[in-house]
């Protein structure tokens, strides 16, 4: 074959085709890009389908495991439950919205518990809490799947690059969260501690051998003496899956003490930035607590009312580490955080002071 040149007819055709392809890509380049994005989303959707189906299977398996007698198939009830939704209060006039959110969240929690009790009447408190976690995670995975599928189908229907890009650009993060939720689901089903339990682990260790009482539903407290200070320890009741209501518990304790509390020390898992070590610890001030903000609001309210200093100790980890079985590095971080808390008590308070130490996070797989 002769080389492409002016005298070579094949070469001429190839040159024309080459130019034609450049022109074609000018008009259809975006369309090809759209197809490729759709293909990527479709792959992610396959994986999400697998994850949500496995989570559903896990929920059914856990329920069947607790239900000794196999009299009724829980699958239809679980499928019905996977579509469960919560409508948050209107925020056009945000004044007084926190108690409304609190009310809705309490309703949601109560409804979850009631559903589980109906499905598995023979389950104990720990099993109910763990099942609640498993089901809640399954509902979330189902929600993620439905949102991605919505954008995928909408994108296919409209072939709009901007609709498809919205999902495609966030896909790595969405998949990371979905896979972490799946790991979370498995940890709940087996009752294994997760990274978010770092705070309750610090306080649980301090509570060992002490008398515990339930301050608020799913939240326990103990009293002890450290270096001459009256120390009140607060954490979500374990080993079932629960974050408790630490805000309400702290509020109640401070009101009972008529504001005579010298310091509140809170310990929680915190989102680390890339480059930071998992399990590294840091100190600061302010209420260190995540979630929708209701518990944080309650702590801020009572701390401001009585001018109680808020000290914070965090154990850093990635979001996916916080909701996956607890890594050894986080246990090492917990030991360092415990030492920091003891130093804070010595340095920031005086003898005969009252100090509240609250371990914030999920107590699944962590006793006290």
């Amino acid at each position, binding site marked *: 074959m002769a080389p492409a*040149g002016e005298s070579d007819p*094949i070469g001429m055709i190839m040159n024309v085709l080459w130019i034609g392809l450049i022109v074609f890509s000018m008009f259809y380049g975006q369309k090809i890009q759209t*197809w*490729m994005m759709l*293909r990527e989303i479709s792959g992610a959707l396959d994986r999400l389908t697998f994850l949500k189906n496995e989570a559903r299977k896990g929920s059914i398996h856990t329920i069947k495991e607790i239900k000794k007698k196999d009299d009724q198939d829980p699958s239809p009830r679980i499928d019905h439950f996977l579509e469960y939704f919560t409508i948050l209060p209107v925020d056009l006039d945000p004044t007084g919205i926190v108690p409304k959110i609190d009310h809705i969240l309490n309703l949601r929690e109560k409804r979850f518990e009631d559903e589980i009790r109906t499905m598995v009447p023979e389950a104990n408190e720990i099993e109910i809490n763990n099942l609640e976690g498993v089901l809640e995670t399954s509902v979330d995975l189902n929600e993620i799947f439905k949102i991605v599928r919505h954008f995928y189908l909408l994108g296919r229907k409209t072939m709009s690059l901007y609709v498809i890009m919205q999902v495609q650009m966030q896909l790595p993060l969405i998949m990371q969260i979905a896979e972490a939720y799946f790991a979370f689901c498995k940890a709940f089903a087996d009752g294994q501690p997760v990274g978010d339990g770092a705070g309750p682990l610090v306080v649980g260790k301090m509570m060992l051998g002490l008398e515990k009482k339930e301050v608020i539903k799913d939240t326990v407290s103990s009293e002890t003496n450290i270096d001459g200070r009256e120390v009140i320890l607060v954490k979500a009741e374990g080993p079932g899956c629960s974050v408790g209501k630490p805000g309400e518990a702290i509020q109640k304790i401070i009101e009972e003490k008529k504001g005579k509390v010298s310091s509140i020390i809170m310990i929680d898992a915190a989102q680390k930035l890339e480059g930071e070590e998992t399990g590294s610890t840091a100190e600061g001030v302010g209420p260190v607590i995540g979630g929708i903000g209701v518990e944080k609001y309650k702590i801020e309210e009572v701390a401001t009312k009585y001018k109680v200093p808020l000290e914070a100790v965090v154990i850093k980890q990635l979001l996916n580490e916080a909701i996956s*079985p607890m890594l050894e590095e986080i246990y090492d971080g917990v030991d360092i955080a415990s030492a920091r808390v003891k130093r804070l008590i010595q340095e920031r308070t005086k003898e005969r002071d009252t100090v509240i130490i609250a371990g914030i996070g999920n107590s699944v797989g*962590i006793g006290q």
Partner: protein
Amino acid sequence: MTERSNRASSTSVLVFIVSIIVMFIISAYFIYSGYNSFMEGRSDAYYQMLIGIISMASVVYVIMQYRGRSTKYKVKEPKVFTKIEHEECGYSTVRDFIKGDYVFKTADECPKCNAPMIITRIYPEAKEDKKSSPLQWLSP
């Protein structure tokens, strides 16, 4: 409506496949032609080679992006261990996690001093690659 969109979709796939084949033929031709020109010492050899290589790289990239993927996924569960310790004498042992284990649960007796030990850690096995996230265990 659905039938029409399915027809449109299959036409799009056909156009895509034809474009890839045309692109492949062009790039193969330019590489071949560039090689011949180079052997003959012609000055346009590098230009032809460049076009051929760029086109071939684009074809490979698109095929890599579009290649068939496995739809079979499986769950590879991490091994989880339970560490049991007796703080007073410092004895500790590690065994596989058993459902029902939780941190601070009183476990077996210490073989050294016969006192009850407690579970102090429940953790997944460490990854060989420290940088990998704990999510890597879910593999396609």
